[in-house]
């Protein structure tokens, strides 16, 4: 009986939470933007959300590419197929690892920061104070942060894949001795723009939407205490990571199956 009650309560909480999240997003985004005031805010957020995530994305991209090349080479060389190293690395990165790993890193680096920042603004009454100054915090605080995340992640994912391919070149061609011309030309031959690159971009656009939405909503909706902020930050990272992996499976099934 008690478990049934618990199930009901959790379901209701989930549904009303979803409803609140939709309302927050819609009221933040559905209004005519004022470019004179909005653009400086957006640029400031693009810097702190996007540019500040560059280091972690570039370093991880490089290492992932290098590991892929190393692992791929030892398998492929057994079949004398090391010429396929280029396309193997490029396809894994463009289709899967680029969008997914950069999304997971982004959730940890930028998503958690967004939640904590907005949550702290709520706890210190800064959001209330904006409301009382007749400035809508959803437009002033939430909207620029959402757009910044939405724009940044697809670009970061593209950079991730690019750096990864160069990392693979470093290991495969410069270290293990695969022929450089073969590496590039077979890759060019095998990678299709629509099927591989475009689908990868679509994936990272979807992930960007989901992660930033969760991050700004969790911050805006958090309980305004230090415990509440820490719970909201954790929830952002856990929920957006899990959703990214689940959505990746669905999207892959739709795109490549």
């Amino acid at each position, binding site marked *: 009986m008690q478990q049934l009650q618990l199930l009901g309560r959790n379901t209701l909480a989930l549904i009303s939470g979803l409803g609140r999240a939709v309302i927050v997003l819609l009221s933040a985004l559905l209004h005519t933007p004022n470019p004179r005031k909005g653009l400086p805010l957006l640029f400031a957020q693009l810097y702190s959300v996007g540019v500040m995530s560059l280091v972690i994305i570039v370093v991880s991209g490089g290492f992932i590419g290098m590991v892929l090349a190393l692992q791929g080479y030892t398998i492929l060389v057994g079949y004398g197929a090391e010429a396929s190293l280029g396309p193997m690395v490029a396809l894994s990165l463009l289709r899967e690892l680029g969008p997914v790993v950069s999304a997971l890193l982004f959730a940890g680096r930028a998503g958690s920061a967004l939640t904590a920042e907005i949550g702290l603004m709520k706890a*210190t*009454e*800064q959001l*209330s*104070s904006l*409301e*009382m*100054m*007749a*400035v*809508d915090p959803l437009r002033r605080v939430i909207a620029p942060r959402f757009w910044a995340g939405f724009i940044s992640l697809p670009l970061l994912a593209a950079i991730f894949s690019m750096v990864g391919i160069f990392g693979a070149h470093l290991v495969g061609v410069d270290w293990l001795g695969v022929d450089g011309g073969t590496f590039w030309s077979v890759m060019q031959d095998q990678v299709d723009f629509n099927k591989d690159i475009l689908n990868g971009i679509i994936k990272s656009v979807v992930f960007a939407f989901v992660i930033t939405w969760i991050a700004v909503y969790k911050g805006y909706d958090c309980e305004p205490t230090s415990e509440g902020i820490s719970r909201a930050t954790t929830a952002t990272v856990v929920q957006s990571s899990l959703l990214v992996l689940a959505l990746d499976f669905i999207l892959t099934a739709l795109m490549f199956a």
Partner: protein
Amino acid sequence: MTTKANYDNLVVINNLTFKRGDRVIYDDISLVIPKGKVTAIMGPSGIGKTTLLRLIGGQIRPESGQILFAGKDIPKLSRKELYETRKRMSMLFQSGALFTDMSVYDNIAFPIREHSNLPEAIIEKIVLMKLEAVGLRGARDLQPNELSGGMARRVALARSIALDPELILYDEPFAGQDPISMGVIVRLIRSLSDALGLTSVVVSHDVPEVMSIADYIYIIAEQKIIGQGTPEQIMQDDSALVKQFVQGEADGPVPFHFPAPGYQQELVKGTAIGALANVTQGDK
């Protein structure tokens, strides 16, 4: 905009009931805030004094009742009208609520930049005037984290008068202030009202400070208004509840103890003596 009606009472609250969950915070209360005066709302902590300010500001909606600001019923306003109305009021938060990513100067300039298209040269003059009024012109380039608690509150006060509002809501302006800051704030609230005809609502439980500046006082406890009047009338009030609050007695109609089971019973519970005590009590 039609002719601006001249209201004697800037805020009128009629039969307001507000609940948080199942807990009743206000049960059918009515009060008026006269224009150009300092009105104080007093009462023990935790009875929702701040809630009243949030209700007037339209941040939360009441269960039932009217909250009229200059004749407009706040809970019934559309989002847009509410935001228009809020431009005419401001609120001083207990924490100050300064924007931590801006300097003192930018904090005060913020509402002016948001709601006007004034050139920067004029904004600078306004900001400096407001800072001068709170005695912190020298602190214009500091960041909020470099300010002491008292200074932060004064900067917040300067920000809340930046747009010359008609109504200022003060949330516990005296709480946690050293005597000097306290003196500055007391003087500022009084002089804003006298010199500029601002209407002030001060929510507080600091009896002497409130007595020294308020024109009219409401005392709220147990979901109701238990006493009201000028400071002199409040001092003369015979009701035991008001007396207890004003004179700061620990026990009285508002009990010192949070509701709990019997002290003796709880201490000896589960011990041999406890069992014995229960038996002897049962015998009685």
